[in-house]
């Protein structure tokens, strides 16, 4: 009977593709928009994601996210180092600077000052140069997308000269980083040099990165640091989610994307549901004949669910494939806007549930008409 259901479904190609298109469209919108949302949220935490060598991030008690910098006095570093269970602790500065090229072009940039001795937090993927090159006078490492912004269309090479806060900086390395939310260039340099590049402030210490000693429970250590220093100390996970939570709570981004995702669900559901319903209505006489010829309601339910599953799986596959293809295309085309975004399995699972709902609702509408159908209708 599944064969019969399949033949009935694909007999009218226009309707069949219409239903599949509806499901695919819904899946595409849901998966793509959700993925962009997840990608954007990840971008808000790009600097946290890129620093994997520290177990604990220590910052001012009032700090709410990775960009809301409340500089601390240098002495806080020593306090953290004095906490039992801390293996080591180093400074990290983060600030916004105006970057100017020799041609006069300028933009805002994210300046990250790394501990002079250990370079903790240095970029993990170097395309040119080495992070040890930061020891050179005025040396900075620039991220690839930032380089393309500052030197559009020019060959990618070290040795370029920049100007930050009226001080000369020489690009000694080019790296790949997790794209930041604001898409500004990310510039790494030594901490001692970063304070020269950033606008003058009394305090310059943004974060203290700490490594836990062997066998230390990270959350317990974080609480201990907080108690003993009066600073906020968070594990990588905690800080990552605090940051994302801040953007979810304080921006319209989730609502915006949520509406688009909901629209995808509604429009996709409406197209698929309506077409499937019409398809069933037009085949009502056929279903009536099958009933008269001895097909039970249970088997009719099976046939309709089979048809719904086919269009659901096809539409979901096409929609998800199109979403994944879209991000792959963006990645391979070198576009910075959506680089580093993909369809996470959680989004794929959510889209599957949404498609399942669309298919179930469409089937229920159609099933009702078929189940209440009197087989005697075939004689009318």
């Amino acid at each position, binding site marked *: *009977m599944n*064969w*019969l259901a399949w*033949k*009935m479904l*694909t*007999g*009218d190609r226009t309707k069949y593709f219409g239903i599949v298109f509806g499901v695919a469209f819904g899946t595409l919108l849901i998966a793509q928009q959700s993925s962009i949302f997840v990608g954007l949220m990840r971008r808000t935490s790009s600097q946290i994601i890129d620093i994997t060598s520290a177990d604990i991030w220590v910052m001012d008690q009032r700090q709410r996210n990775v960009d809301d910098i409340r500089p601390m006095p240098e002495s806080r570093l020593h306090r953290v180092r004095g906490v039992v269970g801390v293996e080591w602790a180093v400074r990290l500065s983060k600030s916004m600077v105006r970057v100017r090229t020799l041609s006069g072009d300028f933009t805002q940039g994210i300046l990250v000052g790394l501990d002079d001795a250990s370079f903790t937090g240095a970029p993990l993927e170097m395309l040119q140069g080495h992070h040890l090159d930061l020891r050179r006078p005025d040396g900075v490492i620039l991220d690839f997308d930032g380089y393309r912004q500052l030197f559009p269309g020019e060959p990618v090479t070290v040795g370029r000269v920049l100007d930050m806060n009226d001080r000369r900086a020489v690009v000694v390395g080019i790296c790949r980083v997790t794209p930041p939310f604001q898409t500004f260039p990310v510039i790494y340099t030594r901490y001692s040099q970063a304070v020269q590049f950033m606008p003058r402030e009394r305090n310059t210490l943004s974060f203290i990165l700490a490594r836990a000693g062997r066998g230390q429970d990270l959350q317990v250590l974080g609480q201990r640091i907080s108690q003993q220093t009066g600073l906020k100390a968070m594990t990588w996970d905690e800080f990552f989610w605090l940051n994302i939570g801040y953007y979810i709570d304080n921006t319209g981004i989730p609502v915006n994307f949520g509406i688009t995702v909901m629209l995808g669900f509604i429009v996709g559901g409406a197209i698929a549901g309506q077409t499937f319903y019409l398809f069933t209505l037009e085949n009502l*006489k*056929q279903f*009536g*004949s*099958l*009933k*008269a*010829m*001895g*097909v*039970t309601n249970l088997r009719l339910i099976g046939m309709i669910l089979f048809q719904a599953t086919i269009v659901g799986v096809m539409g979901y596959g096409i929609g998800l494939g199109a979403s994944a293809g879209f991000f792959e295309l963006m990645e391979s085309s070198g576009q910075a806007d959506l680089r580093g975004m993909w369809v996470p399995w959680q989004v794929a699972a959510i889209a599957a549930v949404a498609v399942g709902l669309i298919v179930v609702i469409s089937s229920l509408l159609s099933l009702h008409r078929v189940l209440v159908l*009197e*087989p*005697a209708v*075939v*004689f*009318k």
Partner: protein
Amino acid sequence: MNSPASIAVLCRGVTKEFGTGEAKVQALRGIDVDILYGQMTLLVGPSGCGKTTLISIMAGLLDPTAGEVSLLGQNRRSLSGSRLVRFRAENIGFVFQQYNLLPSLTAVENAAVPLLIRGVRRSEAIERAMGLMTEVGLRDRAFALPAQLSGGQQQRVAIARALVNEPRLLVCDEPTAALDAHAGRTVMNLIKRVTVRGDRAVIVVTHDNRVFDLGDRIIAMADGLVETTAEESMQSGVH
């Protein structure tokens, strides 16, 4: 008086009402009729006289409001739910006015549908259906889609479909209504030639007086009642 063994469908005092209260319509008002094996019985009468309701009851598609119905020796009341559905699948063949072929199946696949419903393997079902396609003279059009066939050819496919299960009761609803005179007569001749046999009863509802002479027996209905039956009709010149 017919012997019980010769009666395929027996109706006694059958009534059928639709709706309730003021909207109540009495479609059948006490029908007593026997449908016999080995005959093609024509059920005739004006529109709204209850023919469709009566064959729906005889085919097990509708429950009577009152009265006794025996289908192929089984009391109709003892058949319900899935038993009735299985009974229909195994014993009753249908030919519909509008053919009701599945447009996406070829002619032979359409003819094989009742076998598929009964769980016969597809290849075997198609093979058996092909035999019927030969019998109805459509072997060379077996792989055409319904849209590629004329009305008469589609009705022949529907006849093949109705017979593929070897039903003991064949119910045909206005099989010539959508056909021209020539095609209609061809179809009726075909029904008479390939369907009527000793262990099978055939009921044909028709308005088409050009084919009345092909029936073995005619039951004329009016206003929810049997007006005349069998030879009486033929003799009184219903057609």
